[in-house]
């Protein structure tokens, strides 16, 4: 008898009808396997919400998928696989391998209480008595808050209104709105787990108004799903960043939440930020304009050798509210260019591999647009099968169990 052989299959559907797409993405995946799948990762863009709904997408999947197959996944901005690069459709990755066991954990209300959600997730995995070798994680993404009397706003320049809205942030979290808190979830989660992890933040088409997680037959919101894999396969993990320093360093004064910055270089934060970025209020007033620019001005610090980007979330009067926690008083302004993304992808995907599963920041596909096919050309030369997700944030934990919740990065699991 030969050694047990890993079978990994990637499928896709571009059908608009949710049920038909569910069937097609599943059929096109599992027909490539000679054995039933041990688990099934399902991803789709947000478009099925208006074309039959995600319940129908999952119904279509379960019309075809063998009963009892563990299923996890969620919505993403786009994906790249052997077939092409897409900002609309559904894709899936299924594994079949004789030496594999799977445990699934779910944590709910990740924005309201990430600590409790992480505990729920981990305890559910532990109850399944599976020694986990690595994890896939999928967590709910950010939802732009709607403030009473103001509506959807990201830039509130009035000091009084800004302070008022700042006080409302805990209420937003209780309502499961606002930033994803995926960084906090990961910090709590690593207290319970002892194996590497690769994670993706679920997302929509960049409007930041909704996102969903898939767990077996359920469509979830504001949840985290953890898939623990027990196997004798030894995957390799890798993180790459295309961020490039703009040569501007700042010192920030943070509040206790580590998200609110009150001072930059001892000056009031908001006007100083606008001065540094050369922003005019009118140019970033609308939500779309704000985020289309903010994503290209990440302030960063280094943790171990990883560049951690902290993303501008809201302007609340004199204060700046960041979407994730700041772990350093000294930050550096970085930027992103298409050329740097391509050159870093050449490094990341140069190694010959049978399978690559990757999570890439949504900003990369936004930046590259149609040139995202240049990344595909690179991967086609080195990798047999691959699925790369364009997500709203990326989590990675290596064997040393230091949690890295990143933005604007590329994280890879390679077999």
């Amino acid at each position, binding site marked *: 008898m030969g050694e047990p052989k890993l079978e990994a299959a990637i499928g896709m559907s571009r059908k608009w009808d949710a049920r038909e797409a569910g069937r097609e993405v599943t059929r096109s995946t599992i027909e490539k396997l000679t054995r039933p799948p041990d688990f099934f990762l399902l991803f789709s863009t947000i478009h099925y919400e208006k074309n039959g709904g995600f319940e129908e997408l999952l119904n279509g999947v379960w019309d075809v998928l063998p009963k009892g197959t563990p299923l996890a996944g969620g919505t993403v901005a*786009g994906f790249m696989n052997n077939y092409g690069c897409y900002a609309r459709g559904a894709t899936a990755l299924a594994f079949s391998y004789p030496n594999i066991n799977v445990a699934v954990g779910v944590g709910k209300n990740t924005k309201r209480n990430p600590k409790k959600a992480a505990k729920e997730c981990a305890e559910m995995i532990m109850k399944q008595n599976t020694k986990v070798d690595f994890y896939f994680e999928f967590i709910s993404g950010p939802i732009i808050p709607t403030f009473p009397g103001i509506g959807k706003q990201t830039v509130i320049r009035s000091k009084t209104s800004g302070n008022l809205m700042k006080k409302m942030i805990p209420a937003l979290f209780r309502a499961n709105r606002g930033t994803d808190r995926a960084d906090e979830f990961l910090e709590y989660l690593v207290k319970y787990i002892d194996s590497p992890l690769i994670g993706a933040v679920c997302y929509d088409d960049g409007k930041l108004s909704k996102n969903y997680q898939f767990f077996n037959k359920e469509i979830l919101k504001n949840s985290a799903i953890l898939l623990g894999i027990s196997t004798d396969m030894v995957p390799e993990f890798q993180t790459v960043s295309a961020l490039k320093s703009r040569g501007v360093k700042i010192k920030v004064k943070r509040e206790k939440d580590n998200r609110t910055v009150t001072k930059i270089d001892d000056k009031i934060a908001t006007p100083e930020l606008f001065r540094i970025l050369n922003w005019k209020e009118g140019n970033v007033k609308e939500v779309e304009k704000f985020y289309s620019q903010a994503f290209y001005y990440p302030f960063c610090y280094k943790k171990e050798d990883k560049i951690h980007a902290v993303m501008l979330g809201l302007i609340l009067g004199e204060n700046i509210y960041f979407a994730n926690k700041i772990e350093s008083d000294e930050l550096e302004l970085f930027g992103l260019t298409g050329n740097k993304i391509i050159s870093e992808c050449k490094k990341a995907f140069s190694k010959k591999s049978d399978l690559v599963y990757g999570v890439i920041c949504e900003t990369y596909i936004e930046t590259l647009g*149609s040139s995202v096919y240049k990344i595909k050309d690179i991967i086609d030369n080195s990798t047999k099968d691959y699925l790369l997700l364009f997500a709203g944030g990326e989590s990675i934990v290596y064997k040393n169990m230091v949690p890295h919740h990143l933005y604007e990065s590329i994280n890879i699991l390679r077999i």
Partner: protein
Amino acid sequence: MYKSILNSKTMKYNILGDVDRMRDDPIAKVLDDLLKLDDILACMVARQNMISVMPSNDSFKAEINQIWDIIHRAMDDVFTVISEYSQTGLGEMEFRMQEYEALFYVFPDTENALVSIIPAFANKGLIEVEMENARREILAIMDEQEKAKIEVTA
């Protein structure tokens, strides 16, 4: 190979509102898919003074009506540039007018382009990926049609 197909289509379909359009045209179906995206308000295969293929229901989203005339005029000017430079590798063009943007994905070495009108603050990167997919699909369809034509005449 697809170039002669594009030229024959432009001869056949004439201009918007004066068409003998094949309802089962596979290229129109590609445009239908594009138009289903929320942020694509109008899309077509066009060249200067001529819309070659429209989505199969012959219409765009209503929001575009108020600005269509001026955008259409500006589009024709852009096609002057496309016809001048498409042979030298011009692949994409775009312009912003008021609250809208027009994206032109040129079919290589021709004077034709896939054109979409989108809101100015749409997430353009994601739309561009689907524009590129549509361009590739249309090129593949044209190649198939050209091959079929050659087989018939052979």
